[in-house]
């Protein structure tokens, strides 16, 4: 559990717009260990998807660009690789399940052709073997009647089925790392539970690592060993899952937890006031300051990610 598989250092991704240039991901440093599930959590617009796209070299350019940092995978910097080198890693050693399954699946191709493509590309299988591999992958993700589903088009499947297909596609080449961006957000709870259990089971079987992006603290609690909380493009708290929920340190993490209704608990919610700022109008100093009820004079300067004991990191002056 202690081998670092992916080491992200000072990653910064900027977007340009008529309003200027702004950082959607700002000097993010994170590591993903062998065999672990790391959850990246935060509200809409915090930079979670841009972080994932940056790792895989998929940031739309223009308007976006990874401008700083390094991402070490097996000793090589992904950010220094050219497109052909990246393509050998993407979908093969590091794959991704996208937030919107319908945008990631091509509506005009049958399911098996889409899953077969990375198998042909990365494993050099011929068409027949790759199509057989696609059926195996569908069976692996628990799709009943995989032979029939293999010949279907995306629109013929339910949302839960499509998400399974996405996972099958991402796992077809036995990647070492799966990055799943809100893989269950659009699904009903019963289907969500099935998909999450499936991801856990497959991760254990393949001894892979999972970077799970979500805004749902219930999903985090269920799946993660470690958690990175993001706010306005920055990691604000980094911690093991137990202590994070037992004793959240950052006022944003605390506010999130106080905002979530818990099944069967009717006690009053204590929402964080206001909203996440856009990247083009970030406040001075601590980015959470305008919404923080603990803010004090110090907070007009941006706090660094401070050590908070036993591997915990918190970006807040209260914990200096």
């Amino acid at each position: 559990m202690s081998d670092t598989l992916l080491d992200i250092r000072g990653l910064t991704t900027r977007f340009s717009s008529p309003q200027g240039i702004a950082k959607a991901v700002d000097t993010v440093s994170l590591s993903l260990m062998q065999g672990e599930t790391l959850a990246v959590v935060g509200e809409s617009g915090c930079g979670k998807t841009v972080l994932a796209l940056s790792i895989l070299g998929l940031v739309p350019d223009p308007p976006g660009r990874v401008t700083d940092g390094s991402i070490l995978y097996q000793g090589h910097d992904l950010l220094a690789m050219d497109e052909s080198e990246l393509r050998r890693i993407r979908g093969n050693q590091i794959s991704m399940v996208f937030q919107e399954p319908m945008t990631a699946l091509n509506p005009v191709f049958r399911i098996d052709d889409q899953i077969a493509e990375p198998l042909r590309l990365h494993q050099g299988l011929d068409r027949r073997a790759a199509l057989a591999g696609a059926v195996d992958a569908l069976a692996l993700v628990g799709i009943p009647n995989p032979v029939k589903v293999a010949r279907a088009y995306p629109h013929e499947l339910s949302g839960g089925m499509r998400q399974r297909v996405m996972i099958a596609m991402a796992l077809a080449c036995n990647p070492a790392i799966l990055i799943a961006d809100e893989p269950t957000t659009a699904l009903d709870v019963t289907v969500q539970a099935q998909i999450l259990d499936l991801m856990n089971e497959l991760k254990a079987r393949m001894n892979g690592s999972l970077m799970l992006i979500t805004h749902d603290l219930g999903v985090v609690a269920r799946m993660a060993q470690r958690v990175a909380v993001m706010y306005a493009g920055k990691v604000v708290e980094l911690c093991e899952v137990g202590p994070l929920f037992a004793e959240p340190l950052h006022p944003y993490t605390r506010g999130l937890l106080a905002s979530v209704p818990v099944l069967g608990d009717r006690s009053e919610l204590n929402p964080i006031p206001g909203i996440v700022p856009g990247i083009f109008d970030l406040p001075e100093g601590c980015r959470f300051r305008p919404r923080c009820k603990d803010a004090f004079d110090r907070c007009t300067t941006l706090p660094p990610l401070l050590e908070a004991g036993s591997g915990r990191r918190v970006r807040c002056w209260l914990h200096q």
Partner: protein
Amino acid sequence: MGKHYKVTSGLLGLKTDAVRAVDGVSLTVSKGETLGLVGESGCGKSTLAKCVMGLESISSGRIVFQDRDVSDWPEKALRRKMQMIFQDPYSSLNPRQKIGSIIREGLDIHSIGTRAERRARVQELLGLVGLRPEHGTRYPHEFSGGQRQRVAVARTLALDPDLIVCDEPVSALDVSVQAQILRLLKTLQTRLDLTYVFISHDLSVVSHIADRVAVMYLGRIMEIGPGADIFATPRHPYTEALLSAVLTPDPTRRTERIPLSGELPSPMNPPSGCPFHPRCPKAFERCPQERPELRETAPGVQVACWLY
């Protein structure tokens, strides 16, 4: 106590008449309470809401609102008393209309008050939902999702409705903003003696806001009763399975999930007998043969299941 909104509808024909979106539903909502409507996508929550609002005609059964059949209400009077809030705060507001005029529209249509009084009422409503007076002169695109949902709430309140049907009002919002809106809805309810029908696929949200809860599956109500009761001791096997799938933000409380076999059947072709029987871990011979009706199993709790 007080007035009762009795809702009784039968087999519903949508435009195609081929889908049984809502089937043999009977329920009542009492004044001042919140009835939560839960169930998975496509189970008929929105359709039921539209029937209640009179926006969708029913092919059999009756919907009674304040002791009078909905179809006997003059359209305009009904619109004053019943209002609806939708999921999508983006598409439910006219982008070319200023916020103030959006909120004032109902007052204009119903010719309520003088111009000055309407203007004052808009200011009052903006305050009530936590917006500032100057927000009235802005356009929807200048607002965040949460602020737009506040506008939608203000608009529904303009005519002093008795019943507000909220269809997934917080589903598109961030958790912090969702909590802000939930709090607002609760405060307004107490302050204005409002009655809510609150639809959500998020059981934690519903357990937080609803007094009574109806669990729907394939257009039918499987279980209905006080929320505290249903969430603590679910009786219907579907309710049980649904609740067991809910994730709580607490890593020390990993509940055992009751697995459901198969996929949700199409409402075009609902299973015989109990609609849940093909997926029910507790189904027995009777279940595919006869359809169980809602039956009282405890005070105020009704369950449609042959186990009871």
